């Protein structure tokens, strides 16, 4: 950006970003897609809650409410929302109208991205938080569960992070391919078999299915465990696991042998998901989101309108 802009007060400097964000949020909120998604997700939450009300414990019921956002069917809506602002003839004409003003490309792209993320997270939280509150506070004909506030917040955060990653992935695909339909189709073909791909790289714990299965454990996680993990011991295990995963990931490409892994209770067959690591998941999805956004900005910067 020019030096004259750099010297402006923060409020003035952010004015175009906030204006585009506000404009996009307003447009998205008024769109049929978002309205329908909001109605459909509220309906699905209601149906899932009603159907499982007398059967599931708190953690299982909350995990079942999060499942549609993590796996199916809302993935497709999130991807379409992510793809749309930077691809397609109409979007490009409108982008043209903004980019011919004193706005830098990264300001425009980041504001459009932020608007999509906010609307997706907004719909997701509107659709889940009231239901979770009712589920945890109501007296139900099921045994008491040990769901914690930290567990709820972290589970909601993990799903929110995955949704943010999906929006960013849609953004990247839209920026690269420039045709919304093509980008959405490509992402469907990339995302649905993602479990198999992650399995090939020993990164199963990042797959939406695995995350969904780990939700019940995470929902019962007390704060002090997470606190302890951040202070050393478990964190070191996380780093070791991360290094092992990276080693295996690279060995797949180099066709070499990865180091032998010490025998331990299998994470996915134990059913308890005790070694689910919030740190690794946040790091994995956070970094991927960051990379997708940075790549989108780079590709968008080189684009001709």
């Amino acid at each position, binding site marked *: 950006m020019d030096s004259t802009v750099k010297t402006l007060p923060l409020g003035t400097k952010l004015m*175009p970003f906030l204006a585009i964000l506000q404009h996009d949020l307003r447009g998205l909120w008024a769109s049929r897609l978002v309205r329908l998604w909001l109605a459909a997700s509220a309906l699905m939450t209601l149906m899932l809650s009603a159907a499982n009300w007398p059967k599931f414990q708190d953690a299982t019921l909350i995990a079942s409410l999060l499942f549609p956002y993590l796996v199916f069917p809302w993935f497709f809506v999130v991807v379409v929302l992510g793809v749309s602002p930077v691809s397609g003839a109409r979007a490009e004409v409108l982008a043209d109208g903004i980019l011919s003003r004193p706005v830098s490309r990264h300001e425009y792209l980041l504001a459009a991205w932020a608007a999509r993320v906010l609307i997706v997270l907004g719909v997701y939280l509107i659709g889940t938080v009231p239901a979770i509150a009712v589920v945890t506070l109501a007296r139900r004909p099921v045994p008491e569960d040990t769901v914690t506030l930290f567990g709820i917040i972290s589970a909601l955060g993990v799903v929110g992070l995955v949704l943010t990653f999906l929006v960013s992935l849609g953004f990247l695909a839209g920026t690269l391919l420039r045709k919304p339909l093509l980008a959405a189709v490509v992402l469907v073909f990339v995302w649905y078999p993602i479990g198999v791909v992650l399995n090939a790289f020993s990164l199963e714990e990042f797959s939406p299915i695995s995350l969904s299965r780990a939700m019940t454990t995470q929902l019962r996680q007390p704060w002090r465990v997470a606190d302890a993990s951040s202070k050393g011991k478990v964190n070191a295990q996380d780093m070791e696991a991360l290094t092992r995963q990276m080693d295996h990931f690279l060995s797949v490409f180099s066709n070499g042998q990865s180091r032998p892994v010490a025998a331990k209770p299998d994470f996915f067959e134990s059913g308890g998901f005790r070694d689910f690591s919030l740190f690794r998941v946040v790091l994995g999805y956070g970094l991927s989101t960051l990379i997708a956004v940075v790549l989108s900005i780079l590709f968008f910067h080189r684009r001709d309108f």
Partner: protein
Amino acid sequence: MPDEPTAAQEPAADLAIRTEHLTKIYGQRLIAVNDMNLQVPRGSVFGLLGPNGAGKTTTLRLLLGLQHPTAGRAEIFGRPCGPNAVAVRSQIGYLPTNPKLPEDLRPIEYLDLLGKLSRLPREVRQPRIASLLRAVGLLDATDQKIGTFSTGMCTRLGIAASLVGDPPLLIWDEPTAGLDPSARRFTLDLIRELGKTKTIVVATHILSDIDQVCDHLGVMHEGRMIFTGSMQDIQRRICRDDFTLELEGDPEKVGRLVRDAASLEGIEARTRDGQAVVVRVANGHSRARALADVLQLVDACGLSLHSVHSGQNATENAYLQLLQEDEAHGFHR
């Protein structure tokens, strides 16, 4: 200019726009702008003229940083253009051809959004929006959504949008495209008015628009700038030695006029369509004197004079001549 510069080289400080060897090639297939050197003086109303597909819009988009040049560079008020040249774009008010505006907004909301994009504080933004809407005659339409606007209304709003930041340079691409006569008249009057205080670039292929409002002209053909200069420069390029008299009266009297005029020294005369006489003045003879003599003959023959004009539009002739010359040059181009 790549070929024969017709305009004097201006000092950089006096230029609103300067390009050096600006080139844009799409996908190694289409040369949209070809080695263009352009200088637009500050304070001028510059007409960018050329047939469809000549590269006018691409040139403007390169100046706005909406596209990356394949080679060369462009400067606006001495600053380089580019996708993140925010300070450059704050100096420009851009009106695209048939502007596509957000249909879900109302005019005030749209102009307010653009005011924020120009980083204008509310106390500057709001009064300016009100005065602009008044100036472009959209005060009665402030409660309508833009989606319900006609082409003319969209262009008027686009004009207001280009003026929100009060920029010293206006770049308007085909501002009269698709407008009815009154909207076209309004737009041309506005260009004339704004031209008193701002530099304006008007890209068009409508010659009469250029004739009416521009004082400088650039002619593009197949991506190249084949002429730049003042309107006088281009009109001087074609030496017009003839004028036409539109008459009313007996055809025999018209014939007599032609014979009498042809007998004058240095004058050739012929009839056209029975009621018009084309008079050609030979080199070295005064056109004014010849015209005066012929008008005396008209009176003497008892004919009624409707009009006197110099054949076709001078700019149109010059423009067509430039295009023909450019086509004919072949490899010399």
